């Protein structure tokens, strides 16, 4: 395998982790929005805040990792995507600002009107941002972003059937992942009723998201035949894995087996992303810009590969420790301090 292929795999793994971790943080905002009035929604919002508070910034960095990997290793592709899709990407950027800032502001607030204001901004941007990220993915996957600066249509590149479907799928996915993850967090916190509430939400969003994904196949067949051929051809095993894992996570949720349900839910989502990648590989920008054509200079690829591997040696243990600290029993020492 070439350095470019390894780097593409690493970048795509970063994107997968962003979807599974950062995506679930967005989903937390989705459920925060639907938690109801201040009193009724208190327990849910508290759980969401405790779950995503310590980790969301680290999870968010995966997105920056992906951006940097693409502009370093595939600069022409990055510039083409960014310039043609600058409208949805600007909206994504604004959504990211609003969400992160509002979450931090709410953390530091104690008055109800502030909690409502910042909480509202946090929740709204948590839904808007993944939608536009999905729309961007749909634009690229359906071959609407040609190679060149702003060479594609500035509107129809992201306002088209595949993009809208992918946007809806992204929102559904974040909500689904968050609900499944939160069941486990609620049980660990000793609140079985709350875990049950998120179990129900997980089941409902699994059905809705599964329906979007299945319906999406028909949209793609009509709108992006090349992608459809890939998904039902070479990538078919991954599409099937996604479906089976999704069904398994529903069964596990129904049986209240929350920890294994997380694994299957994550697998279902990851399989969609890798299914897309396999379906269009080696093309990066359909119809004809391939990985080897788009790759940066070999010296850059080598230096980046070495950097990423060394960086991971530092990063992975740190990340695991972060998750280990907060996935252990909830803040007992903090509680005794009150």
């Amino acid at each position, binding site marked *: 395998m070439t350095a470019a292929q390894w780097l593409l795999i690493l970048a795509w793994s970063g994107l997968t982790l962003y979807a599974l971790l950062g995506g679930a943080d967005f989903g937390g905002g989705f459920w925060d929005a639907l938690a109801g009035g201040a009193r009724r929604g*208190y327990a849910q919002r508290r759980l969401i805040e405790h779950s995503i*508070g*310590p*980790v969301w*910034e*680290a999870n*968010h*960095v995966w997105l*920056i990792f992906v*951006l*940097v990997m693409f*502009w*370093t*290793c595939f*600069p*022409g592709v*990055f*510039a*083409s*995507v*960014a*310039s*043609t899709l*600058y*409208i949805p*990407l*600007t909206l994504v*950027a604004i959504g990211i*600002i*609003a*969400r*992160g*800032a509002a*979450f931090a*502001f*709410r*953390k*530091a*607030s*104690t008055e109800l009107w502030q*909690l409502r204001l910042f909480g509202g901004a946090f929740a709204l941007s948590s839904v808007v941002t993944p939608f536009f990220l999905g729309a961007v993915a749909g634009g690229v996957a359906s071959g609407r972003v040609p190679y060149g*600066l*702003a060479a594609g249509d500035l509107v129809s590149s992201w306002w088209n059937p595949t993009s809208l479907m992918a946007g809806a799928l992204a929102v559904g996915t974040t909500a689904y992942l968050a609900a499944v993850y939160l069941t486990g967090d609620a049980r660990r916190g000793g609140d079985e009723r709350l875990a049950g509430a998120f179990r129900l939400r997980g089941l409902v969003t699994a059905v809705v998201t599964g329906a979007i994904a299945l319906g999406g196949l028909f949209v793609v067949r009509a709108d992006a035949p090349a992608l459809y051929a890939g998904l039902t051809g070479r990538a078919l095993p991954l599409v099937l894995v996604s479906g089976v894992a999704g069904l398994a996570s529903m069964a596990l949720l129904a049986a209240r087996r929350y920890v294994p349900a997380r694994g299957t839910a994550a697998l279902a989502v990851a399989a969609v992303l890798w299914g897309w990648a396999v379906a269009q590989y080696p093309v990066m920008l359909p119809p004809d810009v391939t990985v080897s054509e788009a790759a*940066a*200079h070999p*010296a*850059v690829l080598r*230096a*980046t590969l070495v*950097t*990423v591997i060394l*960086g991971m040696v*530092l*990063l992975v243990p740190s990340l695991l420790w*972060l998750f280990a*600290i*907060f996935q252990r029993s909830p803040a007992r*020492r*903090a509680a005794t*301090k009150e």
Partner: protein
Amino acid sequence: MVLSDVAATPADLVAARVQMAISLGWHIILACFGVGMPALTVFAQWRGLRTGDEAYERLAHRWAKAMGVLFAVGAVSGTILSFEMGLLWPGLMATYGQVIGLPFALEGFAFFIEAVFLGIYLYAWNRLPPRLHLLTGLPVCVAGVASAFFVVSVNAWMNQPRGFDLTNGTVTGVRPWEAMFNPATPLQTVHMILAAFMVAGFGIAAVYAAAMLRGRRDRYHRIGLLLPFTAAAAITPVQIVIGDSLARFLAHHQPTKLAAMEGLNRTSSHVDLSLGGVYLDGRLRYALHIPDALSILVGFRPSTVVQGLDAVPAADRPPVTPVHLCFQVMVAIGLGLLLLGLWLGLTWWRRRDLPRSRWFLRLTVLSGPAAVVALETGWITTEVGRQPWVVWRHLRTADAVNPAPGLWAGLVVVLAVYVVLTVATVYVLNRLRTQRVTAPQEGWAEEFAP
């Protein structure tokens, strides 16, 4: 394949530049606190642990809480910049993205480490044993400084582009390490990192000086002023020496920028140093002249030749008025902060106390905003002084912009977002100042249990 084009309209180019300037100018303040504040907080916490002094412990709690807000806002405003690199300047990224990718990749990891350990440091305050918890603050300090180094090395590269071969406008060979360690990197990165500690130090000290002016002169407020002020004041003379070397570096490596900073039109020897003044209608007016001083500063003798703006065609000159003005303001503030630090140093040496004059506190209140103004004017000096190039003598800013129409609409939206963000950040930080101190990440959820 050459990926370069011109803006859809001149207004779109201006919009892209303004949007980048605002989002960078905004982020740079937050980034300075992100670089400087962890060290101050960890130091206060360490003193508290060692001496059992409650004032230090309370300060560490308070600063950690503010840091949580500042880091979150800094993280997202920094993300926007990496988006804007592609959204606004795809011409730069398509051609040179690979040349400057390595420091950005390294910065990505530094930011990752910073975010991971900040999460642990802020949220595990009461979960880990105190000494271990204190240690988790150290990677935050190191990674913050490392991030600043990597990002500024990219800006240094834009001033001194190295490490690539061009064939007909296409990059054909890249030496990423040579690009990262270009001649401007050492001085520019140190200048920026020291500036970050000055902004954080004077910025925090200003808050406590304001409280002391209102009569709150207990130990907590005194330490809250003295600790960050001392750090910033100790750095100030070093910063001035670095700044001086940087100006001399420009004389040899980027003379057009120095000429704009000094408002110098003609290349010659025996050049005067001009203090103040306004550059109008193509020449510097109302300035105070010190004979031969610029030549002496650049080459240590009056006969040193200093290059003026006339060395390059008019189309390759930066706008002189803002560069000259901003440079003068930055230098003036730097010298003022040096004097303020000396004042405290003198009274401390004589009688181990703060100056008795209320003017010291008043000036310390001003030192925070002044340090921010010096930061911004310094940034404008280097950025506008590089124009009309985005990559010096290789790529014009006008050729790097996204050719898509309607960039001005993006600017309007982004402007509105930043206004709201500024108001909310200032409001929340101001409230944190007066709130009851709790462990760093306990907020509404703990206080509003039904």
